[in-house]
């Protein structure tokens, strides 16, 4: 239940990323900028849902505060830094830089998602089975 919601959110972010990247590779600065703003907002929401709702709950229940979630938080920071650089490149109309950074961010996100989808989310699902419904509602409302 949690897993499906979060995976769907990953795919939504991917779709926004692809729209921005496709526009940038066509040289369409305006569309790229709008789509990238949508991506930034969706990512910001997704990352903070995990950091403020899912991870604290999981850490409290499993007692694993320094473990997998710490690595995930660190990767979130890496993503935020990359998105900031991409925004600067886009605002400076450096579309080649934007695309090069985008390729890097894309792989960073995908290998991160793979770890979450294949390992961390199923672990959360196990640890938080009895409060999943309430958690899901908090995430939806976030």
């Amino acid at each position: 239940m949690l897993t499906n919601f979060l995976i769907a959110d990953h795919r939504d972010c991917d779709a926004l990323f692809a729209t921005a990247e496709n526009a940038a590779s066509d040289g369409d600065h305006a569309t790229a900028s709008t789509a990238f703003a949508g991506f930034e907002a969706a990512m910001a929401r997704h990352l903070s849902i995990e950091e403020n709702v899912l991870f604290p709950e999981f850490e409290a229940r499993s007692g694993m505060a320094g473990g997998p979630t710490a690595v995930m938080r660190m990767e979130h920071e890496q993503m935020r830094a990359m998105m900031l650089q991409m925004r600067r490149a886009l605002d400076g109309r450096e579309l080649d830089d934007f695309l090069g950074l985008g390729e890097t961010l894309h792989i960073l996100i995908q290998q991160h998602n793979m770890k979450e989808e294949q390992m961390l989310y199923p672990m959360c699902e196990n640890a938080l089975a009895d409060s999943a419904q309430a958690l899901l509602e908090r995430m939806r409302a976030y």
Partner: protein
Amino acid sequence: MNAGLSLEQAPPLSVPLRFFLSAPLFGLAAAGLLLWRGPDVLASRWSAGALALSHLLALGVLSMVMCGALWQMLPVLAGVRVAQPRRTGALCHSLLVLGTLTLASGFLGAGQNAFRVAVLLLGLGLGAFLTVMGHALIRAPHAQDSVRGMRWALLGLAGTVGLGVTLGLGHGGLGLPLWRWPLTDLHLAWGLLGWIATLIAVVAWQVVPMFQMTPPYPLRMRRWLAAGLFVLLGWHSLAVWRGWPLARLPALLLALVLAALALITLRLLSRRRRKVADVSLAFWRVGMRALLLASVIGAASLLASPTAAARLALAATLLFLLGFALSVVNGMLYKIVPFLVWLHLQQRLATRIEVRHSIVLPNMKSIVPEKRSRQQFALHLAALLLLLLGVLLPTLLRPAAALWLADFALLEWNLVQGVLCYRAECRHIDHYR
């Protein structure tokens, strides 16, 4: 709790890179061999030159990269860290390098002792690899489709190594020379299909949807392909070994499964959401078209007259090794190497808290410039086409070999550029004030 789970990012950079940087050098050796010995090498698949060439490619290039990549992929895919990656990686790598060279020298006339040493080195090296990876995959806490698929691929490799060791001991004067013909065929089938194709299929359904944003591979294919290939190979082996009727049926089914894998991948790639056409995509497309063609030609060779069958089987094998497997592996290197360089730089930068916001790291496209990888892709394609024509017109084989030489040299150069970029950036990070 859950001690097997580790979401750490990666083993030390030197572990996969030592495999990746060695691979094109074996490609150079293979191309050099073809250039030196000329068309005779491919006159028959039994010629000493052909055997040396195929092992330089299959072990020295393809297995080299695939082994290196598994060190990198297991933590991400299965959440397991390989124990002591630096030490075990260096051990497997050096045994694989030395074993492959010794084996090739054995085929080229270095005598029985070379085979004995090669069997020892490769048996130890690949045995250690199988033990380390097998142990990690058995412990994998979440057995997803890809983990299961990788287990089948490792079993395929184990079968190939077992048959190879038996054959090698025969060449070394220590074994059963009588069974060389069926054993060689089975060794080839297990190596190409049970190991190389299975692992590439598993990696494909993981990375193609991810990198190119395509729809996922059909669930049934992810669940059954690896096991299905294994079962068909088992059936094929028994049929060949015991002289069962309809021995060609499992081989035809294997060709059909691989053709389906190629067609589905090509279809997914045509439905990708990312429109940015990177060089890796070009390599994947060529690779899958080559796999399709290799399956068709391979199937045709099963039904053709004996003389035509030999030529067709040779063409199918070359297409499989150089057109399919090498293209895909090459395309993957252009994703993995720049990303790993960036990732390790990022981690290094993170330790320098006071300056980490003042330094801008190079992005993947400036670590290995797209222009150079495009040039290498063009060489790769030209070399592949000329080599295939060379199967019909052997005078073209030497020019084809020259192109392969340039192709592997440029690949090595591009990868080395990535490493040099890493070194320079590390110095920059360490000394930045």
